[in-house]
């Protein structure tokens, strides 16, 4: 393995990490800030991707498609929050798990009912497609660089929103004592609806952006959901910084594990056995990472202690 390839793989790892962050951002927001375990986050991600694919198919415009993803997911978020989620804030996590699990079923099969069982088409627009050449003669797809950019922007924006604005303070206050913040004159229900919609919109955006280089299909949200949970738990719940660091860590571990482990095993094993064993361990790697992090830091890297 050459140095250039290694660098490229590190870059791939970082890129994958940022992509994960984009998926995890909305989840941290809702989960960390509002204390709600939202398993349906993956469904909102799917809603965004489907909305984008539908609009892109109808209009041919990628930007409109992104706007549609944001809008559709936000609206879905508002509806879900007002009908269901609102009643779950003061319940324990278990009720939230069950209710949002039910939402997954409704969303998935509802989407299949509307769009059918086959994957949809959503592609990178021509002006963002193809590779560009980075220093060191690394060929790198432009679109992935765009995703990195968007991810970092979202990270910065969220960080400022939560830690620097009054809105952020109030949201966090509500997380610690909803009844009390209301008794002090803050309309926490509206605030929470807004936050949930924002989280949903971020999920939708992630779904649409990522959907262009993956497949837009029913059930696409589930693996993402688990990964996003892994990320925010490693980073520490409620911490935007943690989510970013967690994503990068998971991205790097996964990518490098996938490429390096088989090589590593190859040094003392027969080649084809090494590829299977290496791949098997690589597929467990992020879970091993998560377990190790939690064993040494029971509340994640940036979690409150």
């Amino acid at each position, binding site marked *: 393995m050459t140095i250039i390839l290694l660098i490229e793989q590190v870059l791939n790892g970082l890129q994958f990490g940022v992509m994960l962050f984009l998926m995890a951002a909305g989840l941290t927001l809702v989960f960390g800030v509002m204390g709600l375990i939202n398993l349906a986050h993956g469904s909102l991600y799917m809603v965004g991707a489907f909305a984008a694919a539908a609009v892109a198919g109808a209009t041919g415009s990628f930007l409109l498609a992104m706007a549609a993803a944001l809008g559709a997911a936000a609206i879905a978020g508002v509806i879900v929050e007002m009908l269901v989620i609102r009643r779950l804030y003061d319940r324990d*996590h278990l009720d939230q798990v069950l209710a949002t699990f039910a939402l*997954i079923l409704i969303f998935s099969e509802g989407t299949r009912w509307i769009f059918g069982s086959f994957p949809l088409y959503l592609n990178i627009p021509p002006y963002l497609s193809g590779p560009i050449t980075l220093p060191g003669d690394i060929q790198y797809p432009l679109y992935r660089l765009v995703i990195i950019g968007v991810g970092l922007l979202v990270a910065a924006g969220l960080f400022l929103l939560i830690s620097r604005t009054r809105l952020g303070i109030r949201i966090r206050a509500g997380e610690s004592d909803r009844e009390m913040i209301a008794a002090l004159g803050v309309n926490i229900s509206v605030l929470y609806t807004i936050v949930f919609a924002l989280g949903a919109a971020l999920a939708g955006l992630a779904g649409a952006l990522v959907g262009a280089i993956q497949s837009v299909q029913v059930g696409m949200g589930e693996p993402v959901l688990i990964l996003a949970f892994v990320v925010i738990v490693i980073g520490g719940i409620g911490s935007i910084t943690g989510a970013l660091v967690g994503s990068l860590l998971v991205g790097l571990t996964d990518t490098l594990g996938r490429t390096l482990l088989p090589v590593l095993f190859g040094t003392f094993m027969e080649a084809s056995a090494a590829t299977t064993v290496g791949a098997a361990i690589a*597929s467990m790697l992020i*879970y091993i990472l998560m377990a190790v992090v939690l064993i040494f830091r*029971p509340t994640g890297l940036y979690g409150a202690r």
Partner: protein
Amino acid sequence: MMRREQILNGAVLLGLIAVPLWAWSSGEPFIITLATKVAVLGLAGVGLNIALGTGGLVSLGHAAFFGIGGYAMGILASHAQQYVPLFEWPLLVEGTKSMPVIWLVAIVFSGLAALLIGALSLRTSGVYFIMITLAFAQMLYYFAISWPAYGGEDGMAIYVRNSFPGLNTLDPIQFFAITFVILCMTLWFNARLVRSPFGTALAAARQNAERVEAVGIDPYKLRLAAFVISGMITGLAGALFADLNRFVSPTMFGWHLSGELIVFVILGGTGRLLGPVVGAAIFITLEHVLGGISEYWQIFLGVLLLGVVLVARGGVIAVIAGKGVAHD
């Protein structure tokens, strides 16, 4: 209020015998299979309920123990089937098709796994605990998928159900009887456990660990013991489930299964003795009734579950029997 729950519990158990008996007399063996499934998954839920309901340990990784139980059955039985010993060194160990032996192995190994996973996971709490238990189950899942010796993703089919002395296990009603008796024994154990000093201290640690420490009891040890007991019961259920299907596969380790077990527990009523059984019965009935109605039946399932969470707070048992020993 307590009384009402006891009467309800009795009614549920009676119903669980009556339905398969009726099905047996009217030649509907599939209904018996379904009832057996309820009993087995209910048993797994009862195991989870000890950790989750009494101990407050929300494990999203109980599929790990369920799967270990299943694979204990699969591995032992497949070796017995092919007359290949498991290993010959340091001592010769043969496979077996005897249920009691398989159960014992399932219980021991899932208990050991729970000890290990619990010892590490219990350092965390809350959502972190949920996720770290999930992580361990996922590791086993991916391991099982890519481990070729025992079928990988394809799993293992055991063509003939294992044997139990004196019974013909291939007869659905007899196999049901086995699972039902095990379920009842476990429920009895669970009922004793909840009122015992251990159960009381465990429930106290769920609500306020600091208080429990202040009276000189170590919550970590309580929880670990509860987690191990819980894992062993779920492991036993896994072995039975494998025998019910005469088949094991990595999906037994999947997070869907962990999720379903949680759904059973909440649906019936967290911390209720028969909660998981009621939950499993409702879920499985819905699955089979709705499945025949529409291709999009999961929408209806989703709506129903949602209704239960929003309206029937504290699970179905709480609605019928009142709050009683509720944990709100």
